[in-house]
């Protein structure tokens, strides 16, 4: 279980990284907490690895009155520890605290997690519910739609996620996130996140094998969820609906 040989190309800045990643057979590496094992299992074997976390512009966070923008290389640990701006009530910190375990949180990044697009990843479902926007080197893409399938995104060769912009919900919002895992820190087998504000309600259902399912407005209900989960077998659907029921407003 040793990685096949690869070359390492360390970029100096984002444009350098974009150039390095533009060629064939290259993989960007952020925290490496998923890519590392995949390399070791030889499930992926790029000729070049381009590590991104050394790029200063991918770090840092800023907030305005209506949004928080997190550098793509922000680690789960930084969020879990409250070292970044957060939404009211520590929403982001609480999500981060439930990701895997500390060693993974120390290195894993929010941008890397979204780009890896594991259907059961925490950020993918929660940030979809929070209506986040992915800022890449060339465009701003709503997270809803950014992930096109399991482990697949809209990113094109050489395009890099710079930051994630998370809108601040109006004070007094309802937020719940629940995942069902066999053990704390494991990838979930069912998850749901729900945001309700004066502007409306959003429900994201994750760990369903592809991008999260997003329901909004009047579709947000157990019945609405049941309608979109018809493709699951009855047992999985029952468990997934339980996760949904735990996040819906009373």
């Amino acid at each position: 279980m040793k990685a096949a040989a690869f070359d390492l190309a360390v970029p100096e800045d984002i444009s350098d990284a974009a150039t390095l990643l533009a060629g064939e057979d290259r993989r960007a590496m952020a925290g490496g907490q998923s890519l590392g094992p995949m390399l070791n299992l030889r499930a992926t074997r790029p000729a070049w690895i381009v590590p991104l976390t050394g790029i200063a512009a991918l770090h840092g966070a800023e907030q305005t009155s209506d949004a928080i923008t997190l550098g793509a290389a922000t680690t789960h640990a930084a969020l879990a520890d409250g070292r970044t701006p957060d939404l009211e009530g520590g929403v982001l910190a609480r999500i981060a605290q439930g990701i895997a375990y500390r060693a993974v949180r120390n290195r894993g990044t929010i941008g890397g997690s979204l780009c890896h697009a594991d259907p059961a990843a925490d950020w993918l479902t929660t940030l979809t519910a929070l209506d986040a926007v992915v800022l890449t080197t060339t465009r701003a893409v709503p997270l809803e739609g950014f992930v096109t399938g399991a482990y697949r995104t809209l990113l094109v060769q050489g395009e890099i996620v710079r930051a994630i912009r998370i809108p601040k919900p109006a004070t007094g919002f309802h937020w719940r996130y629940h995942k069902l895992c066999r053990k704390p820190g494991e990838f979930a087998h069912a998850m749901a996140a729900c945001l309700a504000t004066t502007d409306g309600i959003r429900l994201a259902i994750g760990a369903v094998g592809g991008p999260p399912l997003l329901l909004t407005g009047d579709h947000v209900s157990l019945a609405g969820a049941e309608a979109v989960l018809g493709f699951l077998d009855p047992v999985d659907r029952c468990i997934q609906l339980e996760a949904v029921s735990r996040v819906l407003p009373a």
Partner: protein
Amino acid sequence: MDGVQSNGEGVGRSVPRKEDDRYLRGRGLFIADIRPQGTQDLAFVRAPVAHARVTAIRKPAGFEHCVFTAADLMGVLPITAVSGLPGFKQSSQLVLANGRVRHVGEAVAVCVADTRAEAEDIAELVEVDYEEMPAVSDMLAGMAVDAPRLHEGWTDNAFLSTRVDIGEASVRTNAAIVVRRTLRTARQHMAPIEGRGLVVQWDRRLEQLVMHSSTQMPHIVRTGLAECLGLPQEAVRIIAPDVGGGFGYKGILLPEEVVAGHLAMRLGHPIRWIEDRRESLTGGANCREHHYELTAYAHADGRLIALDCEAHVDAGAYSIYPFSACLEAAQVASILPGPYDFEAYRCSTWSVATNKPPILPYRGVARAGVAYAMETMIDAIAREAGLEPHEVRLRNLIPPEAMPFDNITNKHFDSGDYPQCLRRVVDAIDVPAFRARQRQATGPVRLGLGMAIFCEQAAHGTSVYAGWGIPMVPGFEQAQARMSPDGGLELRVGIQSHGQGLETTLAQVAHSILGVPIARMRVVHGDTGVTPYSTGTWGSRCMVMAGGAVAEACTQLAHRIARIGAHLLQCSVADVVVGDGEVRGPTGSVSIETVARTFYLRPQDLPEDVDGGGLDVTAGYKPERDSGTFSYAAHACTVSVDTRSGEIKLLDYAICEDGGVLVNPMIADGQVIGGVAQGIGTALYEEMAFDAFGQPSAATLADYSIPGATEIPVLRIDHMETPSPYTRFGQKGIGEGGAIGPPAAIANAVNDALAGIGARVDRLPITAARIVTAVMAARA
């Protein structure tokens, strides 16, 4: 003179573990820490299919010299482990497959390179043509008349079928209660934190093959390895360095050991193989898979009359050395009745060959499954009789006044008070208070109570193993006690300590006799070059067998010390005692250190009749009766079960354990806790599923779920102490009991919680999906 019980480090004291200093500081020496100069690493080409003819193997061009196949291993013999039980069918395991593979992960070729990564690069280039054959991936299907056969010339796929029928058959007609269950346990992987591994080289000076291997039984590996390589056994030395857990996974002669030993001799430089997690998961899920059809017959008041069982054990593709393919099923038949007294018993077993990794005995061996089966039946009777489960148990347990007791399968229960043990956990849980809470919980989250009581036969001796006729039969266990000239003590034993704390507990035994501080003792183990022969560490035998041997060697050493000490004190040997690190006479004392200096460095001061054997004694030990010690325990737990999500929470877990005299109660608790953690894995988490083609479902620990710290509740451990009448200090083996009870206790608790809605789960592990499936079926 007599040995006297000595100060605070002896038998019965919770002495901190000597070995923990190096472990906690990260200064141990494990197999992957060893890499002599010039070492090359191995990577095996392993079968990606479960059952196939291998029609061609092509070595990559330019790498012919560093790739080896079966055809290259001239003179290497296959691994065979025959049982002497009548009807046993033999398998022959080639160390590299030749012509046929029988499970995913079976080694087909091996590549040698300077690093493991380079060896893996070469392994990828080896081309193997597989002509796939239908696989036997399920033990029941494997016994079908038209099932594909694993081994040529076999009439069916059973390594062994057994049948016992004891007692008067007609008593079954007296039963007011007849209950039936079909139960299944999952195939598991033992997952020690350190996998297997070895480093081997030919020592030109000693003309010896010296192999470091992460093993539990170095002497047995030496015997088996020498046979496969055609070497005399004195030409092989096996050294187990620090070993990071075994549980049975390392109680085996490995094909990899044979291949590497051959290559080390052939290539002339050190060879290393470190198993990785993918290898261990895809080719090493090798334990625990049972299927039971059970019928229990009882009186209306819950008294058990008879038990009928048909048990299948999935034995995998080959019979492993030394335990063979049938140990597990043979155990099922003999231990299923457990600590219960009843009139009639029938049990048929089949050890079925399947296209899966060969079965190995895992901590508790068959007992985890057997206790699950038996305790499920007791709860089923309780439900029919309308009685509390503990009440039914109390009506059937062997009473203390019957001890020692030979049960229906002739197991000799040496001692104990089983009813008291059960009452203690029932009291700890406070059953009436729990039942009141349970009655309130009528919503989607239900509460349940479950318990199990079971025995753990340990330190099996000659009389137990001789009948099985497998390659290994334990006899006398020896230990060497050797004084150094400055009064230190080396204890040399052939067993191997890999987490059990034996470097401490064996020193405690010696301390009880000699009083030498344990800081001045070295327990040397796991090295065939410097220790007496031993079958090794398995079956919870070390504290009884090696402990007894150390006591015997130290007692004889004390006699020799006394003789010299008496001379130095100018008194009669009859007037001195040895203990507390000195020899005491009527008018004064002399330290053991002075005695040692005198023997080695000032022999002119020795008495004329001194024993020329010196302060170096090898002595052997066997308990007064070698049918095994019987420790036992009761486990009781309460759970909540969310009937919507399938989540199970362990709310409370109480244990009462009787391991006889505990040499180190802290270490005994550690053994119980670690075992329970693994038992929780069996009950709730661990399963290696194989698909119809014999493909294992998990290649990483993200997919094969084992419990961690967050899954283990606080365990409340109580002890009873009924000394074994047959062992040196009254100690009993307790290394496995922790792992035996949880599947039974937890499954009973979950099913108690589900009983109110008419649902039941009859297989392990009990996962969220299985709960929800059962709940949906009950509601349908």
